[in-house]
């Protein structure tokens, strides 16, 4: 599955407002089309996953992810925070770019790990951080992800 198939206008935000890790997670979850209760459960699950080791992979990127019963298909979201937020990243630097990935425990297509891998690879593309920083509108992000 190509990353471009997963992103759309509704699940991309280039102007996250939150200023701490928890609020960033909540804002990202808010981009998914889920019920309130489901959002709460997903937040708790993402927090537990973060407790096992931060998903901040460094260089300004974080990829919070988990499997959860509250979704019935793979869900993703992207968010950018202009200044960056402390996400306990492995390099100790603030994270500015966030990819949220959530999948049900059983997926027939089993896209979860491959998509996670593709996103991680995308984050390692040379100069990708500066390109993401310069994005003016969601369409630019979609175009960038189309080329990935």
């Amino acid at each position, binding site marked *: 599955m190509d990353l471009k198939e997963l992103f759309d206008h509704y699940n991309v935000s280039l102007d996250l407002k939150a200023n701490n890790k928890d609020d960033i997670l909540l804002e990202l979850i808010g981009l998914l089309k889920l019920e309130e209760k489901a959002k709460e*459960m997903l937040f708790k699950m993402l927090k537990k996953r973060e407790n096992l080791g931060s998903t901040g992979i460094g260089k300004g990127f974080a990829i919070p992810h988990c499997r959860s*019963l509250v979704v019935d298909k793979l869900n993703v979201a992207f968010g950018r925070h202009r200044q960056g937020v402390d996400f306990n990243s*492995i390099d100790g630097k603030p994270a500015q770019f966030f990819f949220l990935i959530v999948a049900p425990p059983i997926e027939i297509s089993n896209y979860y790990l491959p998509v996670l891998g593709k996103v*991680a690879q995308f984050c*390692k593309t040379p100069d990708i951080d500066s390109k993401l920083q310069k994005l003016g509108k969601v369409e630019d992000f979609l175009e960038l992800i189309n080329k990935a």
Partner: protein
Amino acid sequence: MKESQLRLLMFLQDLLCLKKEIQDFQVVEKYEEMGFALDKKERIEEAIKEVTEQLDPVLYQRFLRISKKYDRPLAPLKNGVCYGCFVSAPTGSKLVTQAKDVIEFCNYCGRIMYRIS
């Protein structure tokens, strides 16, 4: 607000799924290749304990019994069908007709059913 027993069970199954994942050497290797740190894996036990302590003991025992038979004791109910065994739930089922947070067992396979919107 007190969490419903069904939601606690769903959370427990998610945590057990995560535990299984981080115990799988190959999966952990993939995570590490991607750049994720899993340096506090032992914390999963605390999280599981925290949830099980809030569960009704009788319900938790039943969950454990179903777990012995099926890898995942909870199954989604979609369009009135249990997606564990693909048998229809009774039309009078509360889970089918109205409430989402009720504990109901599949009449056929015995799994605990939950509904996704």
